[in-house]
């Protein structure tokens, strides 16, 4: 049989895989492995790397068949590896065998990935990061501290950006690596957040080692590689669409229906306004997918990330106002953290409460690029407006004031 090309052929190929590896009876790793081997993990990847060289949009055909058959989504199992690590290693990995070695366990979910970008001193200004990587024989030796690292406590691999040259301007002194998290020089500690849980971690790097073969892109070209990861992050965060009335707005509708005693004309108008925003956001994502050309995620990812984050907050604020006094109750601030990719993540946990989700939504406009940074991106990269005057772009990194 020739490889699938059309949407119908991709659908049929996926059906064949789920027929042979029934999601309801075989382990998830077996199903995902079979999808990878059939080129259905990322259909836009090259053949041999979990793909078929097809248009990115056709992945939705695969996902729909797998979901209908009762299977999980690879993205849900290994969000950072599947959504951000894979596109980055495919674009920048020069050793194809090594890339394939990384990709298959990402697809199967056997090896979770995390992203080692942010630092205590480098949040929005992530290119100002201070973690150092110094060459030592065939290896690099890494020292520094990373923060806000989702899944680091269960991750086997990390996407690391480190400073390899402090004597040049900040963007030019960075290099991108894949680091093995399973080594003595890597220490992971939970980072507790305002909900009481610890979805994130701090990662301390003490003389951690990375073989030079795990470098992605040239020495000093790490910022370009990081942009690939970040564009995929924003696209992944803002890009999840469902049916009309699904997601947080669906929770608000359910709550509204269940509390006729608390309904007022003013709240009704607020909810109608929120529903309208949620619906135009959902339809805008559908439109973006229709008009998107195959290839890298574009600026529409930044639009949807910004809109989705602010909408989430407004929807949960509405829910709290609708609940009234009950909104002020909370089922304990005990520190909890999950040990798989979904555990501990508030919005992925069906058992989390509305009050937890409300508190969690404060992070929506911070994580993956603050709304302020998103508006700068829209202003400068989409509208072409001039940048702010800067005091750091032409100076050696080590001379730029920090604090």
């Amino acid at each position, binding site marked *: 049989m020739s490889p699938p090309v059309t949407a119908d052929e991709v659908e049929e190929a996926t059906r064949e895989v789920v027929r042979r590896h029934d999601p309801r009876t075989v382990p998830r790793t077996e199903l995902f492995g079979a999808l990878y081997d059939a080129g259905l993990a990322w259909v836009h990847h090259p053949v041999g790397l979990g793909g078929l060289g097809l248009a990115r949009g056709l992945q939705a055909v695969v996902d729909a068949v797998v979901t209908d058959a009762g299977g999980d989504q690879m993205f849900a199992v290994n969000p950072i590896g599947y959504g951000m690590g894979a596109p980055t290693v495919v674009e920048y990995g020069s050793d194809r065998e090594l890339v394939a070695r990384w990709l298959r366990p990402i697809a199967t979910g056997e090896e979770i990935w995390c992203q080692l970008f942010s630092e205590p001193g480098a949040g929005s200004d992530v290119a100002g990061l201070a973690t150092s990587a110094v060459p030592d024989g065939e290896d690099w030796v890494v020292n520094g501290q990373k923060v806000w690292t989702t899944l680091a406590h269960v991750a086997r691999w990390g996407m690391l950006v480190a400073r390899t040259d402090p004597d040049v301007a900040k963007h030019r002194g960075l290099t991108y690596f894949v680091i093995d998290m399973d080594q003595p020089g890597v220490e992971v500690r939970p980072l507790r957040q305002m909900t009481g849980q610890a979805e994130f971690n701090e990662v301390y790097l003490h003389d951690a080692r990375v073989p030079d073969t795990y470098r992605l892109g040239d020495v000093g070209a790490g910022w370009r590689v990081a942009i690939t990861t970040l564009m995929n992050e924003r696209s992944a965060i803002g890009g999840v669409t469902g049916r009309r*009335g699904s997601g947080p707005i*669906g*929770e608000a*509708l*359910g*709550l*509204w*229906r*269940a509390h006729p005693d608390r309904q007022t004309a003013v709240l*009704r*108008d607020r*909810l*109608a*306004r929120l*529903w*309208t*925003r949620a*619906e*135009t*956001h959902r*339809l*805008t994502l*559908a*439109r973006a997918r*229709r*008009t998107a050309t195959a290839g890298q995620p574009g600026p*529409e990812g930044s*639009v949807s990330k*910004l*809109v989705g984050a602010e909408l989430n907050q407004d929807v949960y604020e509405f*829910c709290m106002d609708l*609940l009234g006094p*009950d909104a002020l*109750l*909370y*089922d304990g601030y005990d520190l909890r953290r999950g040990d798989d990719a979904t555990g501990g993540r508030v919005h992925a946990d069906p*058992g*989390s*409460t*509305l*009050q*937890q*989700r409300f508190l969690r939504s404060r992070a929506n406009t911070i994580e993956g690029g603050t709304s*302020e940074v*998103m*508006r*700068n991106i*829209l*202003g*400068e990269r*989409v*509208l*072409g*407006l*001039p*940048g*702010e*005057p800067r005091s750091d772009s032409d100076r050696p990194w080590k001379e730029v004031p920090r604090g």
Partner: protein
Amino acid sequence: MADAEFTVTSEQQELRTALRRFCERTHDEATVRRLMDSDDGFDRALWARLGTELGALALAVPEDLGGAGGTVVDQAVAAEELGAALVTGPLLGTVGLAVPALVAAPASGPRDALLPELAAGTRTAALVAGLFAPYDGATAAAVSAEGGVLSGVAGHVPDAAAADVLLVVADGPEGPVLALVEPGSAGVTVVGRGSLDPTRRIARVELDGAAGTVLATGDDADRALRRSFRTAGALLAAEQVGIAARLLERTVAYAGQRWQFGRPIGSFQAVKHRLADMLVGVEQARTAALHAAWAVSDPELDDPDLAVAIAQATCSEVAYRVAADAVQLHGGIGFTWEHPAHLYYKRAVADAALLGSAEEYRERIAAAVLDALPADLAVPRVAIG
């Protein structure tokens, strides 16, 4: 197979380009200013060129009635471009309201003769009705019909002062009546009123025992009016997108050219972030307007009345907000008569009120969605302390 929603055809792209070029050449700002001070408020010859040369006035009208046989999505592309250029002329009265009402009305001699003339742009029409609320099955106009004899006053009718023919909506003994009235005939007084939006004027229409040619009554008239208001709602939303998108473009250009404190004002985040919000608004509005046009064309896709309500609620707010922000970001020059920002701002104010306000459409949305939630809807888990 029909194209999937949001597909843009090459014909639509060509139409957009052709209209943009036409407007740049024949309907620049100086033309807008000249026409808004003219007797009719628009250029009849230019209107006829839009109809005949470009075929832009009846894209969704069947070919045997003088149209292009396309869809409301095609007509929405035209409405967006004509809105962006603030084209004066009876876009709302003729193209948005009267033509769809006539297409949906039962075939008759007067209707079949009039439609090709409106499509060609050689004659114009206005719908005389209550045009400041969503259509709800009852005629909002204070005009009554006894057979073909019409009496009453409609105080705020856009595009009526210079219209060649009036399509009057009246209350009859058996529900709504749709009748054609000649403006010059006995018992008809049409008086143009000073209008906040000088590019689309309001008139007062007074009928005192005027003779009308009845085109539809009862259910037939209701069907025609429903179709008319839906189509006009989708096209007005597209016009609002055109206005907002053009203002965003102009304001971005200005923010890159205007220097204060030794740098372009667009480099200040206070300005840049407002422009980013304008962009977000334009993208959401464009989606809502397109979805409405698609749903009016193909009711299988979504409830067209709900889709139009979403579009009107969204686009009225976005176009107004973007216009207000455009004035603000232009600073002093944006408040002057010589700068065109106020012309767009006034159109945005008028468009937001026409066919009903965002609030009224949100009430429609609330009734359709919130008041009709299924009883088995999942309720989120709430902490109980």
